[in-house]
């Protein structure tokens, strides 16, 4: 009997047990009812151990396969603006699109702690499907493991992503040159601030929401308007500061940014001021920094602002000849200071 014709398996358990990772019927029911049901696409065909995929763009001479992987362990699992599933999809998609790739397919591996609520898994799977649809990708293969209580923090997700880079594209950090303009697509630090609030240790309340979103549409619009775009980086852990330092190191340029123009939501600023944090180091999940040739900067910003993910896009600085490899910020008072890579984790100050 064809697999796609028999009635779908139903998972009756309310909580995950070790049996659900055992490779037997319980696991089959979990995988089919929770994950396959959420991710399946008609025309995907039978379920094999591997996804079998074709895409015309890959066969174009000079096209390159883009391949990336990432693991997600965020705490708390669900937070304002998203959940671990949404970041798992967007994070991997964004790692592809910042390289100028058209994202195609994702894999998703789940490590689930014994005792987790199945309803939570369903929410996460639904969230991943929604994010995948928005990003224009399909989750085509995956894996599930269950570990004993205490061996994982509720759920960890690892996603890998495949995309295709058209022959005429060659984005690379090392291509950034003095004079190039640095542009960010939106407010900095919303995700990091939202997570800090959601964790609850600081007992702060605010309306701030993670900026988690896929950036494919934004990148395509920007590349269309500014085909000379040199490189883009997803400003995730370590914030915009880390992304800028990586680019400076890879290209050997210096970078100058201006504190007065950095886009910051009032609430994110409030959190930073109260806890003594620097927004440049807060994580983002839907914010990138792109370097474009000076003549294309205005067009790039305009193109970003015409997309949902780029409404607050702004140029924040540029690459320079001076101080190669070092990122310097002109403070709003007219002084200057270095923006170094983060050391360890940013801890709230009391002083």
């Amino acid at each position: 009997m064809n697999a796609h014709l028999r009635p779908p398996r139903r998972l009756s358990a309310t909580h995950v047990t070790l049996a659900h990772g055992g490779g037997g019927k319980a696991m089959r029911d979990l995988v089919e009812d929770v994950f396959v049901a959420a991710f399946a696409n008609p025309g995907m065909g039978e379920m094999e151990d591997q996804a079998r995929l074709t895409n015309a763009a890959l066969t174009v001479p000079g096209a390159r396969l883009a391949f990336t992987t990432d693991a997600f362990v965020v705490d708390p699992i669900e937070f304002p603006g998203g959940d671990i599933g949404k970041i798992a999809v967007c994070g991997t998609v964004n790692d592809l699109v910042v390289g100028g790739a058209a994202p195609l397919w994702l894999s998703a591996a789940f490590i689930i702690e014994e005792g987790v609520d199945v309803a939570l898994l369903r929410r996460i799977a639904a969230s991943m499907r929604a994010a995948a649809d928005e990003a224009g990708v399909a989750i085509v293969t995956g894996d599930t493991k269950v570990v004993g209580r205490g061996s994982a923090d509720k759920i960890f997700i690892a996603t890998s992503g495949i995309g295709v880079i058209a022959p005429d594209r060659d984005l690379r950090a090392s291509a950034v040159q003095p004079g190039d303009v640095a542009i960010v697509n939106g407010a900095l630090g919303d995700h990091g601030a939202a997570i800090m609030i959601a964790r609850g240790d600081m007992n702060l309340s605010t309306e701030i929401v993670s900026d988690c979103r896929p950036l494919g549409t934004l990148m395509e619009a920007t590349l269309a308007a500014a085909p000379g775009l040199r490189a883009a980086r997803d400003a995730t852990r370590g914030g915009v500061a880390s992304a800028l330092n990586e680019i400076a190191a890879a290209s050997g340029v210096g970078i100058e940014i201006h504190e007065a123009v950095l886009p910051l939501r009032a609430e994110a600023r409030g959190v930073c001021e109260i806890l003594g944090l620097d927004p440049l180091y807060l994580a983002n999940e839907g914010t990138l920094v792109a370097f474009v040739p000076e003549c294309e900067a205005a067009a790039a910003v305009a193109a970003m602002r015409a997309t949902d993910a780029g409404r607050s896009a702004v140029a924040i600085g540029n690459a320079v000849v001076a101080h190669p490899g070092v990122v310097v910020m002109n403070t709003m008072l007219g002084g200057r200071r270095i923006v170094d890579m983060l050391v360890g984790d940013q801890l709230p100050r009391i002083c």
Partner: protein
Amino acid sequence: MCLGIPGRIVAIADETRKLALIEISGVTREVNVACVAPQDEPLAKLVGSWALIHVGFAMSLIDEEEAAKTLALLIELGEAQAEIEAMRASAGEVVAP
């Protein structure tokens, strides 16, 4: 131990434990207002005041008059400097051939 930030007291949360809700740039938190509580008057008198917040405690009420005075002084210095720079610039124009 100096990180303190001005916050506005927006509501009283617990009269006995002297807790109030403060707001800073859209972020709210419960803080202890014992240090700024008015003597022999209900805590509600504090609502609307600004205080310096440090590790969850309102430590001192902000004197709006003094704040305005300080600011005025600074702006004066800024304006005086702008005038000086303007004079220099215009003097330069006159002198240059």
